[in-house]
């Protein structure tokens, strides 16, 4: 795990470092601390990371710009902030977790556990996906997404208006933050169940899901049963 901590309070940064090292004791973790946002952003541009622990003043207008820019990137963002009243909004934008200050070990570990947990706990779910397009951030309303397919290290969001956009996060990373109406039905596909029309069994035990617009999406052999249950 490559982890970056952006926190300008030395004592809190130390605390985060200590606890993070504790949690990832079995996994080799590279850990960097930046004491200002600008330093952190420079670091992200030069280095790849897996998790960002971000102390963000979400009360300033700048706060949300930074937040959008962070969640559009491939890594997961965990906000560690004093502005607890902004937690809901942070979740709307797709952060992995929001750890309110003051925090203890248990709460921070809980956030880290989300990385590996298969079942997402029922939480306030994201509403927008922030997408980077030629340097600008565009917000995609999650309800306009039909399905998502993997495209190498990126994901391709297929929208109701028949357009598609690339997201920097992998399909695996997106699966961890998407709301429950999204389901992984194939190694390379996540669909919105509200778009699903019916399951089709094709010759040779190949399964497909037909969407309301007629498109057929392949369904993985192992995921067929779960999907059938969900569709009732």
């Amino acid at each position, binding site marked *: 795990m490559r982890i970056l901590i952006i926190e*300008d*309070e*030395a*004592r*809190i940064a*130390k*605390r985060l470092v200590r606890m993070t090292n504790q949690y990832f004791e079995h996994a080799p973790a590279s850990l960097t601390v930046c*004491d*200002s*946002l*600008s330093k952190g*952003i420079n670091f992200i541009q030069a280095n790849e990371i897996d998790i960002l622990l971000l102390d963000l*003043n979400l*009360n*300033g207008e*700048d706060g949300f710009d*930074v937040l959008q820019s962070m969640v559009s990137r491939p890594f997961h963002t965990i906000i560690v902030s*004093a*502005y*607890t*009243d902004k937690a809901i909004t942070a979740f709307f934008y797709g952060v992995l977790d929001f750890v*309110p*200050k*003051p*925090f*203890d070990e248990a709460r921070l570990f809980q956030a880290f556990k989300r990385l590996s947990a298969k079942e997402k706990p029922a939480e306030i779910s994201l509403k927008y996906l922030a997408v980077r397009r030629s340097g600008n951030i565009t917000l995609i309303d999650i309800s306009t997404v039909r399905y998502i397919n993997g495209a190498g290290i990126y994901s391709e969001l297929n929208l109701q208006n028949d357009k598609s956009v690339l997201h920097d996060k992998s399909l695996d990373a997106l699966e961890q933050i998407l709301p429950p109406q999204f389901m992984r039905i194939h190694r390379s596909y996540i669909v919105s169940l509200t778009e699903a029309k019916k399951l089709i069994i094709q010759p040779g035990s190949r399964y497909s899901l037909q969407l309301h617009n007629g498109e057929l999406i392949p369904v993985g052999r192992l995921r067929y049963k779960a999907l059938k249950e969900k569709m009732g």
Partner: protein
Amino acid sequence: MLYRLLFISLLAFSSCKRDVLFETGLTKYHVGDNVHWSAKNYNDINWKYNRGRTGNKVFWARINVDLQQRLETIGPMGVQVHAFGAYDFYWDGVLIGHNGKPLSTEAKEIPGTEAAVFMLPDSLITPGKHVAAFRLSQMSNGHDLRDVQLKLQNYKPLLRDPLIITAMVHLMAGVFFIASLYYFLFYCYSKQREYSVLIFAFTCLFFFCLLIVEYVKYYVDIPYTQFFIRLKAVGILTFLIASLIPYYFSIQLGFKWKRQMLVLMLGAYAVVFVIQYGHYDYTSMLFSLIMWITCLVTAADATRRKVKGGAVVLTGMLAIPLVHKFALYDIALFISYTIIVTCMLYLHVLRARVLEEQYESTLLLSSRLQLELIKKNIQPHFLRNTLTSLIDWVEESPKQGIQFIKALSDEFYIMNAIAEETQIPVSQEIDLCKKHLSVMQFRKEIDYVWQDEGILPDEALPPAVIHTLLENGITHSAPLENGRMYFKLKFVTTAKQKKYIFETHARNRETYRDQEGGNGFKYIRARLTESYGDQWTFTSGAAHHGWVSVITILT
């Protein structure tokens, strides 16, 4: 002039109806002295209607009176005489009384009053022809060739009516007196001294004086030699009132060419005064006219500029000529003055409301600033970050954790003590800053060093202003190579200003986006305005050693 209306209107319900019907002939004069000239049947055919200058001589006057009918016969009948000088008064040859003492071989003249009332014996008031004769001298005011005139009326109302009118007028004068007293005190004890209030107070006072001076003649004997002193006083008071009223309107309605207009108005008064010198009534009338024109112009201009209250005053001013058209001159004057005073009061109320709103907004600002000060220590950024660090200290090294708690509690204590103040001694502010630094030292693990220079401990300044600058310094700076950050507060005072210079010696952080002082600077500016109005300046900017902010208070 204005008091006349009162006279008439009050007369309306006292006794306006004539209770004696009579006619008088023209007064005849003759220089010389003979007691037989008082006789009813004396033939005065050679006497003149023009009295001429009588100088130091005794002279006589005779008036033929045709007493037609007494409508009200209860009580004795009286006669009111208007004349200048001192005289003996005869009715049908019978000596009725004296007003002063006319010149005689033995004694000098003792001056009488301009008006006098005598009672006539019942035996001498049979219907028919009568003769009033006067033995006079007029040693003073010799240029004033005033006619001797009389009027018949029942004796009781002759004495009583002026008293009733005087009582009524004094009631009215009392109202103006109290009003002037109220507004004088209001002016003296109000924080924001409004000139217009003082002008209104003076207007009321002068009107009170005018009423008193006008009616003083009914209960104070003024010798005819002093007759014009009262009239002059009336003239001066009228002039003052006629000057203050337009001035008041021009202030309240914000007239742009106030000075020019007032100069023009005073010029017009001067011209009237010179041309009409000695014509007291006519002068007053012209003064009132000029005053009305000035007020009209001011109100019309205010209405054009849509000034609040302008239209009301204009309506009032335009109503005045209408009143004059439909009402008797004296009554119209009274109504006019009532309209003017009402307009003045209306403007005063409008102004008072504006002041009240201003006051309320200052209160609101003060309580908002108080709240902001209290919030400083409970806002999440401060509180939750501090608590997070605190937990860590307690978990990792409990002893220092306790010191941290102590420092935090000290900062809270000072914050609590100053929360409701608008100004605190600078020494207390420095204490607060030092406590804040010790809290921040635990959080940021940076060595903060506080320095001050030239501080006068008791010098007052708004609370948490330097504290706010300190917070900004901590947020936007990184420590020097030696791991330290220095904060330095300098106080410099000169004859005209006091200066607080706050320096941060550190490396300025390059911020993600350009950040202005934001809410912190807003707080500082609002606090300075609250305490010093616009008598302050505030600058803040990067310097070679870090950051420097300067607060200058003009004294």
